[in-house]
């Protein structure tokens, strides 16, 4: 799967992130190629979510550079990052619980709606046209992720696995170039995990979306990912195909422990 000619979409270089005296990420560099599924794994506290938050613009690293589509990215806020075509889901689901599935997914289109507040308030003419167009795109995503039976159900009353899927739908509604998934399969049973894996592969293949995901389930990672980054205590431990990483002694030691 790894192809040398593939274009690098994102590159993080020598990232260093500190919270006060605590070092979360220490000098980490890796890249994400266009069209691949890139997994970030590591034990608890390894700095995986922090890394995603850095890419997402939520944290600002003290040192290091982020290159996106061949340009060095200045320090950005999350909403600015979102505008550049990076969407994400969260480890602890962050949906509007009182709103229905379709309403939640529609919020993902917010950045793409251009009619101003007053037009939308009037709900007339161009504003309606625009909403219809966006609704269509959202319905396609809902169909794609097979959540049409819960279209009008408030998400707060949905089981966990489905909420995760709604969150993915909302992220997809942004039509991102790069999709960041923070533990998309945490807390799911085997069947839900299989479903979710299939959707992730489908999104990657059908929409051509580049995906970077954090996941604990090694079986899932090995099946899904094209390339894997392993972090441990904020440091880069290994980087390569699932096979290479699995055979790496440092990774085995980090996961299984070393005799002292």
């Amino acid at each position: 799967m790894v192809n040398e000619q593939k274009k690098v979409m994102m590159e993080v270089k020598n990232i260093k992130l500190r919270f006060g005296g605590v070092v979360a990420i220490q000098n980490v560099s890796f890249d994400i190629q266009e069209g691949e599924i890139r997994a970030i794994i590591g034990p608890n506290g390894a700095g995986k979510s922090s890394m995603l938050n850095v890419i997402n613009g939520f944290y600002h690293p003290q040192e290091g550079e982020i290159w996106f589509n061949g340009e060095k990215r200045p320090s950005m806020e999350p909403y600015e990052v979102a505008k550049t075509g990076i969407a994400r889901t969260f480890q602890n689901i962050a949906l509007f619980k009182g709103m229905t599935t379709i309403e939640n997914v529609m919020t993902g289109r917010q950045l793409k709606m251009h009619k101003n507040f007053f037009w939308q308030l009037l709900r007339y003419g161009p504003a309606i046209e625009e909403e219809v167009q966006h609704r269509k795109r959202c319905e396609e995503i809902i169909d794609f992720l097979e959540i049409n039976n819960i279209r009008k159900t408030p998400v707060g009353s949905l089981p966990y696995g489905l909420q995760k899927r709604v969150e993915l739908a909302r992220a997809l509604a942004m039509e991102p170039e790069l999709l960041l998934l923070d533990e998309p399969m945490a807390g799911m049973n085997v069947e839900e995990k299989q479903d979710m894996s299939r959707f992730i592969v489908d999104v990657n293949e059908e929409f051509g979306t580049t995906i970077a995901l954090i996941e604990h389930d090694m079986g899932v990672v090995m099946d899904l990912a094209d390339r894997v980054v392993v972090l441990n205590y904020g440091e880069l431990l290994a980087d390569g195909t699932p096979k290479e990483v699995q055979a790496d002694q440092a990774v085995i030691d980090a996961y299984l422990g070393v005799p002292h």
Partner: protein
Amino acid sequence: MQSGDAVLDTMPKLLARNVQKFGNSPAFREKDLGIWQSWNWNQANEQIMFLAKGLIELGVKEGDHVAVIGRNRPYLYWSLLASQHIGAVPVPLYQDAVADEMEYILTHCNATFAIVGDQEQVDKIQDITEKLASLREIVYVDPKGLRKYDKTRLHSFEDIIHSGMESPSSIHDQLQDRIGKIESGSTCVLLYTSGTTGKSKGVVQTHGAIIGAAMSANEHDGLTKDDYQLSYLPMAWVGDYMLSVGQGMAAGACINCPEGADTFQVDLREVGPSYFLGPPPLWERIKTSVYIRIQDASAIKRGAFNFFMNHAAKVGKDILEKRSVSILDRFLYFLGDIIIYGPLKNMLGMSNVRIAYTAGEAISSELFDFYRSLGINLKQLYGQTEASVFLTMQNNNEVYADTVGKPIKGVELKIGETGEVLYKSVGSFKEYYKNPKATKETKDEDGWVATGDAGYMDENTGQLRIIDRANSVGKLKNGALFAPKYVENKLKFFSNILEAVLFGDARDTCVAFLNIDLAAVGNWAERNNISYSSYQELAAHEQVGKILKEHVEEVNKDLAMDPNMSSCQIKRFLVLHKELDPDDGEITRTRKVKRSFVSEKYADLISALYSEKTSIATKTEVTYEDGRKGYLEATVKIVDATLYEVKKQDKNAA
């Protein structure tokens, strides 16, 4: 079969008639991207013709078998019709069939082409592709997930339509030529039976039979092009074929396809069908969901619900059947309709139902009356695949829970010497595909077909009553009648019991396996703070055993009333550690128990039931949804139930 000037005895003729007479009325609808899309007869005809031409270009020959697999969608109904137009024979398959079952049918009928709904079905076929020597091309409707597949033998539905659209006039001529050759006696469809005894058989049905039976049924209920229904039953089941294609085409009625597998309830509500067919488990499920929800409602709502439902139980049926009811009761019912029945029916999607049927299994009178008292005209019909379904149907105002109606037009019934129901019908099948032996055993030279069901004509009502499958009726050692299904149905009428299997043929006493209904019992457990993590755990719960024991004893008490059946009382029973599952071959896709298979598979449990043991450890093979196999280990408890004396005095007094 006459309508206007031409005899409408083939599907192409019916389609042409519908286009000519109803051209602009809706023919097919499907909810897609949240909106109901619709095709009128003109548009549908255009698509079907493009598809037919596209299939000719793909190489489909006359007499070829075309497998159609997927959930109910207009595209697949068009596939059935297009195949019929080009002289090929469509073979609808159950979409949830595992690869083994598919392999059996596809090789048995030597299907050369398959038109499937989505990636899931493509995967299943590709898994067994080496064993399907005759299968040549696969057409898929939904391209999702198929982007990277090898496309040499895979074609998208859209491409086929497109090739039909741009086909040369020679193809057009060929199509017209093929349509011209189709006659009433040509094969219309090959439908596989569910196969309660052994492998399923392919039933060959002609155009004339399907349309004849459909027209009789339409006439019975006055179905017209203004009726509409929701096509949600499996496309491989004869019931859906007759309703959606047979009756729909014959009447020119619109077919509505749900959005997806799980959206049935919402779609039903939006469509609000006027004609509806459902098997008893569906009716049971709907009623259970109503009662579960009302338990969570506020006290006032609950009070109103209970009051008016009691009132409906008292007079609702009489009002529906236009018998005399006091003015006060009528007024109360009218009020109830505004406050409870109307909104409830609306919520269930039953507001516009003019005619509803339950078929396939016996239905409890309590469940049956629940719907009728609400003013929903639920009736019974009886039929089978070999008869293009319709044999007997109940007339309005002549509706009973324990009978199945009178023979409809074109059907003759008689009861054989052994008590088996025999019929002659316009809808009778031609033969079992590649099985002349079975054809001979079922259909005699005069055209009488044996149903395999034991029954009799009820003297009071003049309607047919079905007791059991003829071959499952047996005798206990003491010579008493053993009618397992009769008892099993009594058990299944309890909402807590999903399935029951009774054993006792050539034994001293009767014993039973039970399956709990996970929805009903799970809800009970939730309310009583009983925690469980799986079906197995809940089934083995002591209190569940107690509840089921009460149910079994109630059935025993009931059986004791009837001197003919009193020997069928259940002495010992157990709650199975797994649900009987079509994937494991224990029940059919239409949820009929395969008795001999079950008794072989669980022989250890049966012998334990006939011993003194109070529990038994067992290991059972299970098949997962993706076809993998695994083992389930469990210790199953055996419960003794009380038997009741036959009340002889009562019988004399009566």
